[in-house]
């Protein structure tokens, strides 16, 4: 048993949902108890999707356990097929269903549906979300592209004259951290380089698209946690090479362009001469001088953590004082990277261990996940988010890639922003008596959760209350109104009282006014 205050990854079936929801024409039937449909909210609320995820849950309850849960599952699969008519289906169990051992794969097979049905074995008590996504994508690719695999030893046919080099983009899913904009940024880069993108998968792909994966010349792997395994199989089966550079940061983007150009047989020089990041100049401008040597702690999935540490050290001039990941499958990459900065690598999924490491390292900036924001709040340290898990505010409406040259610009702004606020706070600390910039007026949303409340209370207290007096209980009741609307409630009540010649405001007056102004 493990005490988890927060968990970095969901269970593996959520990974499978991310693949299914990213794709089109695929349906997922999940054997799961009532309540596990909460996962739909990840997609409809956090990612703000406009359609329900293509997932049918059996939602069994206690009274079903005595009966035939296997029959319940078969009915759900048949009903889902009849209703949604998918090109392919995946079937599996959530953690509770895994305990009752109904064999979703065998049961679905017995239905003899006229489409491919891929059974998923996702061990919920030992594996996690990214593994689940990777395994699901791999099983889908194997099943759907498998029939196209040439006999072993067949060389890849040479590209015909006048045919542009082509690639697939692998890895983006539903609920991925900035996957939407990373794909757009990288696809644009590839297009300008002269490489044609055949299939982007899983996100946006249909099962029929996965069957065509073997046609491209090579693969661009954006998220190895999700697509590494499938890319390995495609390399073995179709002889497709895959990119290894993750284009996060200016330098890595340049290296990525060179790597792709080499795989495609193109010249990267014109593109590299024409394009670059604004971030590279911003970091050189004198305004950024004070960033030098800022102590930064980096934690996230392995891909984003390693990339962020590289950008922090070489492109921002920070000092990396901690580097860690929750991706055990990619721990080796993080250990290698940690050597570059002479720090002890932290490989853990225990939030409390991360908190302890941050406390020990005493950084001035934390680059982490939504969970590190909790730690940052507790310790009063500025923080920026670089990796999943993230919440709704990190699925922004605006274009915000992490990858490519525009991604580098986004990183610069996002990482420096909380530090600016941090500097303001230092100034506040020095000049506490200042009539305008007193501590309670600090606008920073970080490192002092109660301060906005205090500021609002101060503002309310300072508001002139005129000739009308508040009774003690009226005043006490007013304090129960949330601070952000309290000022308005006070003004409305006083106006109400003034208009009616009421001299003394009681609880009753407050609520009379509330009813009066309610609309």
């Amino acid at each position, binding site marked *: 048993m493990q005490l988890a*205050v927060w968990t970095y990854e969901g269970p593996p079936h959520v990974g499978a949902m991310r693949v299914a929801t990213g794709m089109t024409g695929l349906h997922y039937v999940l054997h799961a108890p009532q309540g596990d449909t909460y996962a739909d909210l990840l997609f409809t*609320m956090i990612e703000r999707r406009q359609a329900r995820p293509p997932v049918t849950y059996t939602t069994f309850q206690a009274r079903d356990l005595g009966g035939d849960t296997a029959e319940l599952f078969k009915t759900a699969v048949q009903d889902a097929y009849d209703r949604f008519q998918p090109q392919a289906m995946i079937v599996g169990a959530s953690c509770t269903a895994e305990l009752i051992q109904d064999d979703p794969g065998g049961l679905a097979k017995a239905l003899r549906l006229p489409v491919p049905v891929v059974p998923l074995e996702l061990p919920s008590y030992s594996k996690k979300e990214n593994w689940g996504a990777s395994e699901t994508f791999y099983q889908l690719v194997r099943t759907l592209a498998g029939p196209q695999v040439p006999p072993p030893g067949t060389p890849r046919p040479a590209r015909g004259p006048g045919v542009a080099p082509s690639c697939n983009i692998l890895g983006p899913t539903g609920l991925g951290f900035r996957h939407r904009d990373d794909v757009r940024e990288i696809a644009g880069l590839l297009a300008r380089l002269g490489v044609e993108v055949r299939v982007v998968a899983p996100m946006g792909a249909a099962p029929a698209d996965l069957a065509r994966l073997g046609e491209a010349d090579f693969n661009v792997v954006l998220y190895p946690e999700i697509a590494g395994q499938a890319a390995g199989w495609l390399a073995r089966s179709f002889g497709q090479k895959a990119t290894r550079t993750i284009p996060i940061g200016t330098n890595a983007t340049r290296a990525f362009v060179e790597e792709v150009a080499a795989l495609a047989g193109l010249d990267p020089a014109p593109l590299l001469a024409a394009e670059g990041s604004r971030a590279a100049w911003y970091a050189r401008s004198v305004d950024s001088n004070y960033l030098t040597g800022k102590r930064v702690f980096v934690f996230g999935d392995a891909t984003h953590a390693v990339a962020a540490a590289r950008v922090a050290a070489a492109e921002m001039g920070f000092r990396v004082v901690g580097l860690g990941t929750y991706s055990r499958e990619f721990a080796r990459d993080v250990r290698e990277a940690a050597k570059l900065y002479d720090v002890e690598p932290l490989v853990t999924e225990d939030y409390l261990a991360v908190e302890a490491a941050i406390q020990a390292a005493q950084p001035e900036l934390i680059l982490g996940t939504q969970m590190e924001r909790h730690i940052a709040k507790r310790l009063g340290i500025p923080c920026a988010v670089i990796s999943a898990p993230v*919440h709704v505010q990190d699925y922004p409406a605006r274009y915000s890639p992490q990858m490519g040259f525009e991604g580098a610009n986004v990183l610069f702004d996002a990482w420096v922003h909380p530090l600016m606020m941090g500097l303001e706070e230092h100034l506040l600390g020095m000049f506490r008596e200042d009539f305008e910039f007193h501590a309670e007026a600090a606008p920073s949303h970080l490192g002092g959760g109660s301060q906005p409340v205090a500021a609002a209370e101060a503002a309310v207290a300072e508001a002139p209350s005129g000739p009308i007096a508040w009774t003690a209980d009226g005043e006490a009741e007013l304090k129960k109104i949330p601070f952000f609307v309290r000022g308005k409630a006070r003004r409305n009540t006083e106006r109400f009282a003034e208009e009616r010649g009421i001299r003394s405001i009681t609880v009753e007056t407050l609520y009379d006014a509330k009813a009066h102004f309610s609309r």
Partner: protein
Amino acid sequence: MRERGQREVFCGLTGIIWLHRKIQDAFFLVVGSRTCAHLMQSAAGVMIFAEPRFATAIIDERDLAGLADANEELDRVVGQLLARRPDIKLLFLVGSCPSEVIKLDLSRAAQRLDRTHGGVRVLNYSGSGIETTFTQGEDACLAALVPEMPASRATTPELLVVGALAEVVEDQLRRLFDALGIGPVGFLPPRRAHLLPAVGPNTRMLLAQPFLADTARALENRGARHLPAPFPLGAEGTTGWLRAAAEAWDVPPATFRAVTAIGEQRARTAIARHRERLAGRRIFFFPDSQLEIPLARFLSRELDMRPVEIGTPYLHRAHLAAELPLLPEDALLSEGQDVDRQLDRCRAARPDLVVCGLGLANPLEAEGIPTKWSIELVFTPIQGYDQAGDLAELFARPLLRRAALAV
């Protein structure tokens, strides 16, 4: 109508999200899987906590294979937790689907841990999806608190208000009871663990929430008597709810009218502002919290809305006895759910407003069907006279917003 099929509802674990805010020195430890932990943080994680008062003990392979004694593991985890949070006075071990399927006996574990950690009361209840739906988690939690309540030796009637209410609502109701001369009044759950009200044969209980079947039964077993009443939503519901207590206390009708008239009038004034937008509109409820029936009653009788279908996860006929006769006769009442079929009915009916969970809300909006997400009704102060206008506004707002947006 009763339906069975896929249910798009929360499990009882989600009750923790408001209960941990209500009982300020309690900690909720879910014993479950990574899925349970993920649910909790997906729901609550957008708030940035310096110190959350809930966590999950995640069962792993070693526990399942019997390699680790699950009870020893639980003791270790609880020790770790309490060392970190010495301010905690009440610890709930919350059962989940996995802990129930493997039959981990959390009630014995709670008894054991209660002995070993002096000063911290350890209790347990189930918030699993297989046993509980959304607000039933609060029911299970409060039912676990009932045996902890001190025995009342009162010889005259005492009032107990059951169900978690916003603090401002609690204070308003307390003032009304004072004015009516009804008392003493206790509230379950209390704001602090050690402030549990007493219960005994002279306890009269008013249910503030419709989802408290087990809690009410446990209180009845300790001698409390249920006062049948509509739920205190809207002007009519609040008056009916207060009247049930007033009658039990033999408050003279003139006094009752004098005390409630102002509040009731104020509520009607506030509600009236929303009638124009809501009157005649057709509303469709997906099942979620068991609040659906009292809400439909309020919206139909006080705002002239027309309920098309009223879905509820469970229908407790005795507790809703004062509500059901007030519903319009042509509304379809459905218990349970088959979500795809219910969506078919909803699309066919083309209601003006749909009350549903967040898994359905945005997809329905994208289809052009206005929605009011139902969970907010559990997180917002909606009971009593002075919230009646706010409650009406919750339903008016999505329509107002659609009218306001020009993009």
